[in-house]
């Protein structure tokens, strides 16, 4: 049956929970090949129908055309949905993505991501004042100024506002300004300790 591969791509994404990016499915190539074959068959049939008077070929031609449209729709849906997931990664993880996720992206997706990052950075830099505003921070309303955090992995020196720095070693606990910790918490380096 035509469009099986295209449907498989869509199904794979449909099954993946929100925010998750499965590895780029090379099946796209097969879909494009199927489209090429369908188109060539249609081209020859159209010629036959026109010159050879083979009107009986028309339903088949229409059917192949529908399959072509479906293949395109599935393909674009698959690619676009992945872009949306990749976009979400910038907001979740920051501008440097964990390696595990990078391996799931195609080179072109990486390029899209880099352009997106740059565009977003330009926009944020333009917001009020000279340094701009990083709107990827402050994702939750502030409840308190300082929060208790535990360090999950060795990170090294971390500078706090007034110039002092803390050494983030695995399992060390600190009482730090919330706004400094947000991104590290999202990256899994610090953990908010709720007592």
């Amino acid at each position, binding site marked *: 049956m035509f469009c099986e591969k295209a449907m498989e791509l869509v199904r794979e994404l449909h099954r993946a929970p929100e925010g998750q990016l499965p590895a780029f499915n090379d099946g*796209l190539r097969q879909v*494009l090949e199927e*489209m*090429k074959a369908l*188109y060539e068959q249609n081209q020859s049939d159209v010629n036959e129908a026109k010159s050879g008077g083979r009107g009986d070929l028309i339903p088949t031609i229409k059917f192949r055309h529908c399959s*072509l*449209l479906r293949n*395109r729709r599935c*393909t*674009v849906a698959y*690619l*676009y949905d992945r*872009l949306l997931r990749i*976009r979400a990664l910038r907001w979740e993880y920051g501008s440097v993505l964990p390696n595990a996720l990078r391996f799931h992206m*195609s080179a*072109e*997706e990486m*390029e*899209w991501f880099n*352009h*997106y990052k740059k*565009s*977003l950075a*330009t*926009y944020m830099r*333009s*917001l009020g*004042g000279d340094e701009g*505003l*990083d*709107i990827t*921070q*402050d*994702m*939750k*309303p*502030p409840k308190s*100024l300082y929060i208790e955090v535990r360090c999950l992995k060795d990170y090294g020196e971390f500078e706090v506002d*007034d110039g002092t720095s803390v050494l983030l070693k695995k399992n060390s606990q600190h009482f730090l300004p*919330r*706004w400094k910790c947000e991104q590290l918490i999202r990256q899994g380096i610090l953990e908010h300790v709720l007592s």
Partner: protein
Amino acid sequence: EHMEENLRRARKGDLKVSIHRMEMERIRYVLSSYLRCRLTKIEKFFPHVLEKEKTRREGESSSLSPEEFAFAKEYMANTETYLKNVALKHMPPNLQKVDLLRSVPKPDLDSYVFLRVKERQENILVEPETDEQRDYVIDLEEGSQHLIRYKTIAPLVASGAVQLI
């Protein structure tokens, strides 16, 4: 910025500092949240947002800041280029163009919104939703609150006569 200057002048550990800081955090949160929301909407509806800007009449003000407009254009170009290079240009010639205005869903202007009336409005035409209904006319009293289809009152939001809540 004014608050940051105050912070620098106060003594470290002064209670004023904490309260200022807290207020700054709150302001930053609200501001970031607002700007994020705008960006999310721009990305979600990007072909329609850009089309609206393209067909904007002289003298009509834009819904986008110049920076947002630049961002929206870059987002569209980035996405179109990607789809073209990865898939569309490898497809049969008559299928290579995808109309994004048709493929990307439009914002649902028929969704219901809450509003408060700031300036009294008379004879607002409410169009029927189903074929059985007929259109009717309502007055909006100052200070009253309503749940109504966005499309009906869209121009009033733009003019400031009503405020969405």
